[in-house]
């Protein structure tokens, strides 16, 4: 237990000193601010693009549009940034050899995985929260109301998907070599999930729905009940991936 806490402390220090915290916060705060603003200024942007004679009118933007922007930004670029920032969390330690000293001193392999997942998850949670609060605040100011149906559940889904990604990164890094293999494999599996999303029958099992139906939940196009199964599947997969990482990593030559 003590070594778990010690290694968690080390992970926090590392994320701070290698500026991962800074990068995540800046990017996600940017999204938090940009999303409502973009939504609000959409009509202006379109007006300035209008050509003579052709009048483009779009309906007055609402808070829903602000959140639509938020989910679009966060689920696409945001998750990409998460992958990039956390992509090497295990791989670089293995390639550099910094774990050898730790392990010979008695740090157990599964603690390494657990500590990394713990700290990465906390960082993800705080980042997403900061971003969401910013959007919520801006939206309330710009559009009058921030409350949308299913908003919290929608955020929860996105958050859970982030955890799923972190677990995937750890899993794929636990048995591959090189700095980018783990990241690459995670990206590939994401693409596969995206492709599978084309088949409506697989919707219920596809974790990707947690990151694609967020706006639909707000507009009413999807119900919470549509997503309960994917939530369960994703939760189960995350736990499975974590457990497998620990098992595989145990036998890993360092």
């Amino acid at each position, binding site marked *: 237990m003590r070594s778990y806490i010690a290694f968690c*402390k080390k992970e926090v*220090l590392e994320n701070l000193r290698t500026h991962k915290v800074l990068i995540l916060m800046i990017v996600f705060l940017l999204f938090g601010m940009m999303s409502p603003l973009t939504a609000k200024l959409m009509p202006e942007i379109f007006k300035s693009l209008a050509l003579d004679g052709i009048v483009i009118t779009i309906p007055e933007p609402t808070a829903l549009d602000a959140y639509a922007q938020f989910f679009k930004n966060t689920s696409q670029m945001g998750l990409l940034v998460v992958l990039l920032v956390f992509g090497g969390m295990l791989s670089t330690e293995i390639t550099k050899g910094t774990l050898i*000293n730790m392990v010979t001193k008695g740090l157990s392999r599964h603690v390494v995985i657990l500590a990394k997942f713990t700290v990465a998850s906390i960082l993800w949670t705080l980042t997403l929260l900061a971003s969401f609060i910013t959007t919520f605040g801006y939206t309330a100011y710009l559009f009058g109301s921030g409350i949308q149906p299913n908003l919290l559940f929608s955020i929860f889904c996105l958050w859970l998907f982030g955890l799923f990604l972190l677990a995937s990164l750890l899993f794929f890094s636990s048995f591959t070599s090189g700095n980018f293999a783990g990241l690459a494999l995670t990206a590939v599996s994401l693409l596969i999930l995206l492709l599978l999303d084309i088949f409506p029958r697989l919707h219920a099992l596809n974790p990707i729905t947690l990151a694609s139906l967020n706006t639909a939940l707000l507009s009413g196009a999807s119900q919470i009940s549509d997503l309960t199964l994917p939530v369960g599947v994703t939760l189960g997969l995350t736990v499975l991936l974590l457990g497998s990482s620990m098992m595989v990593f145990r036998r890993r030559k360092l």
Partner: protein
Amino acid sequence: MNVLSLKNVSKRFGSLKVIDGLSFDVEEGIVFGFVGKNGAGKTTTMKMILGLLECDSGTIRVCDEEVTFGETATNRHIGYLPDVPEFYGYMKAKEYLTLCGEITGLSHTQIRARSGELLNLVGLSGVERKISTYSRGMKQRLGIAQALLNSPKLLICDEPTSALDPIGRSEILSILHAAKKYTTVLFSTHILSDVERICDRVGILNDGKLMLEGDLSDIKSRHRENTVTLEFESTHDLQELHRTLSDLPFVSSVETQNRALLVRLSDTIDGNQRLLEHLTRSKLMLLKFEVGEPTLESLFMEIIK
């Protein structure tokens, strides 16, 4: 007490028998130099002692407990410095030692005390910079500090001086010598002068076996063959001289080196005298008569032959 004991250890990689019936003991409180050319099997032996590699046969005991592969209970007695230690570059020395201490299970007061002591020992006390700015020598020193953190009975260093400049080497050797107070040191090297400087005992590994092993002073006196370097005014009859000298009973061998003859005497007490008498009688114009001492290097070269 023997801190380390190897009996008949063998290890084979594929068809190559890297270690063949290796046996030696290391007693408490000495510095043991483990010498051999590159690829002789020094790192392999160390990894077997640490339980990172499995030996095919034989036993290894650390502090009288048997070493088993995978299950590394014996490692709590050992501090290990690999040949290229890697640390977390964004940390400072003290932070890194604190992390190691917490993982090993030391209390905070212990960690603070030990870190201070050890950083002093290795000469890194005042250094506040991040480890990423350290030179290779400083990293080696930090490596020794972290290896000694939990007060191990045996400190194993894999080629601690190999990639350093002469000043760095000198510093590391002094530290290892000073560490004798706290622990027993086993280090590997292919630089013989290191061994001559600080080792009490030496083991020369070649072809998977220990070719030579014992106290450094013992080895030197046991194999003491006086060598005398002779230089003459005329190189005219060098060959003839080479033959006549080789036939002398107190001469074990003669070598021609450029313009000089290197004569190895087997009888140390009278040898010098008798050689000098012979040369005077031969009426040759002697320019140089230089008496040489055996070095570990010359012994090593002989063994490797």
